[in-house]
């Protein structure tokens, strides 16, 4: 039996080689298709990683730890105690987690009012650790004037351009922040503008203020406490596993809820999904065209060799064995050219675009989506899952597009196929 499989395979292999022209046509379709697929998938992966990274840095990280009620009602009432902060930090110190974490940000986030002589605006006030926060969020890089918060700052505030113009604030101007404190009292805090940023996102530029964490804790009567502990990982790909690890390590600490960016940033999550879905349709169409091209060439070669299949059957090959020859031919063609296309796609993409593709020519101003600014430079990214998926795709196309021609060959009517047109 093994010998027969070898015989049929060697026959198929020689048939592929004999029909070099037809084979190379099929191979070309597959190579171009796969190369395009690899290129476009790597761009999508790279773009999504950018979106997610930008989004989670401005938001509450790939993963955040909060009090369970904070998610529904983001008030200072629902806090994390110093003991719980210790538990979180201990959980994060585990090797498998620490290896994935690139930045953490302890924060107190409250809604309040910012007022100046010119008026008052509703704002989100974030008490942040200047050092940790500047490694975490990219807000410090969006500086328009002045500077970002620094360690040792007390009454300094970092505000957006839109808020500055609404409240007619300049560097060094004073403003009063008002919010409810931990005891439920409305209290005010004086601050001075140390820096002004322009993120490009209207809601952020209009309504976000960073102040030193210690100032916020004192002001809001929440000494040593936080509302959110935010975590950024090396890559969004490791969110699922790291999330699980953190959850299991915090299982014994009551009153803590671990959230992933999928939950804290549903709009961003939705945007990535929609984009992935669009890609899926595009790739589906691309691959269907490739598959049709393959079915077509393999089928043509079958129709043209009907007599050969008649001979094989007369020699005693069963229908299954006869079909197998064609099936193996199809697999050899699609799988070898599929891998060639995949490797070509990866190497060309990495050769020419390893520094990223600049799409800024497409937009005249900054492009925002789901509340984040999109980086117009996309660095193509190849992930293991992308490559595994592509291998599965190639095999699937190979199997699907070889099956019909194989069926056709298996069903050849021997008597008919051996007839001579006199």
């Amino acid at each position, binding site marked *: 039996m093994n010998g027969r499989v070898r015989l049929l395979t060697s026959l198929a292999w020689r048939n592929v080689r004999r029909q070099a022209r037809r084979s190379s046509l099929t191979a070309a379709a597959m190579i171009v298709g796969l190369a395009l697929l690899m290129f476009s998938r790597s761009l999508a992966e790279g773009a999504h990683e950018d979106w997610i990274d930008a989004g989670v840095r401005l938001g509450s990280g790939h993963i955040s730890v909060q009090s369970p009620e904070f998610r529904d009602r983001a008030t200072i009432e629902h806090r994390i105690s110093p003991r719980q902060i210790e538990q979180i930090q201990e959980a994060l110190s585990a090797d498998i987690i620490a290896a994935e974490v690139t930045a953490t940000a302890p924060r107190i986030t409250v809604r309040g009012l910012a007022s100046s002589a010119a008026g008052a605006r509703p704002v989100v006030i974030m008490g942040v650790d200047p050092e940790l926060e500047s490694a975490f969020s990219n807000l410090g890089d969006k500086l328009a004037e002045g500077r970002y918060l620094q360690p040792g700052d007390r009454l300094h505030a970092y505000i957006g351009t839109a808020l500055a113009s609404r409240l007619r604030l300049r560097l060094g101007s004073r403003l009063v922040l008002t919010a409810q404190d931990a005891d439920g009292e409305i209290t005010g805090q004086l601050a001075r503008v140390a820096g002004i940023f322009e993120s490009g996102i209207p809601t952020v530029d209009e309504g976000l203020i960073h102040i030193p964490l210690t100032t916020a804790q004192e002001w809001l009567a929440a000494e040593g406490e936080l509302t959110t502990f935010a975590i950024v990982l090396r890559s969004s790909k490791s969110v699922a596993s790291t999330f699980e690890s953190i959850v299991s390590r915090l299982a014994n600490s009551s009153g803590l809820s671990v959230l992933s960016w999928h939950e804290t940033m549903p709009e961003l999550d939705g945007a990535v999904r929609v984009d992935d879905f669009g890609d899926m349709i595009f790739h589906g169409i691309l691959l269907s065209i490739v598959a049709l091209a393959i079915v077509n060439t393999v089928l043509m070669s079958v129709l043209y060799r009907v007599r050969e299949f008649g*001979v094989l*059957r*007369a*020699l005693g090959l069963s229908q299954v064995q006869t079909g197998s020859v064609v099936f193996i031919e199809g697999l050899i063609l699609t799988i070898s050219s599929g891998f060639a296309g995949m490797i070509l796609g990866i190497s060309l993409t990495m050769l020419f675009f390893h520094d990223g593709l600049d799409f800024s020519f497409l937009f005249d101003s900054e492009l925002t989506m789901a509340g984040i600014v999109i980086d117009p430079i996309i660095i193509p990214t190849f992930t293991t899952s992308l490559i595994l998926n592509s291998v599965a795709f190639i095999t699937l196309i190979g199997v699907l597009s070889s099956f019909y021609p194989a069926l056709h060959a298996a069903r050849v009517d*021997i008597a008919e196929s051996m007839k*001579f047109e006199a």
Partner: protein
Amino acid sequence: MTHNTDTSVKTEGVWKIFQTDGLSIEAVRDVSLVIGAGEFVVLAGPSGSGKTTLLNLLGGLSHPTKGRVWIADTDITDMSERELARMRLERIGFVFQAYNLLPVLSAKENAEFPLLLRGVAEEERERLVSELFEKIGIGGLEHRRPSKLSGGQQQRVAVARAVIGKPALVLADEPTANLDREASRALLDLMVTLNRDLGVTFVFATHDNELMERAGRLIHLVDGEISSDNKQVLR
């Protein structure tokens, strides 16, 4: 049921009726015959008389509309495609009019194909092929592709492939139709020799009068029916 191992192939009241466009064509009509092991039979008849259709029935390439067919003592009438394939592999050799050979295989690989399918060991295959190629007069051509062989040489390789597995029956459907007179004679000589020396049973369809005279037994087919069936002395 017959249990006569001296029978190579046998039919009883075999019909093949084709239905095309509401027209039914009786290509083979009520044919009953017994061909013994070691016979050399020429199936003669004009074009369209049903020679090919009858050979296909004898070789299990198609099913009879009515009647029964035995190969040796095995009734193949109701065999499945799978069983027929196995039966062909083990008991029947075919030589067609032309394009018998697989173009991607060398002469030797074509000839040994049935042995490969049966899992015969390499040494044994080597021996059988080289012996046969010598006998058939194509020694030295083992490694040529069919496209590099003459029509007569190709048919010799096809005959080698048909007889190499010592089948119960070799069916040859106008194997000389595409050959010139000389090559036709030579191919027929070869088959007669193989029949005489190795006892291979041949059923050989032709409408060539000269070739008919060489038959040990001549069966005439007219409109799908046997019109005469005569043993004659081999010359």
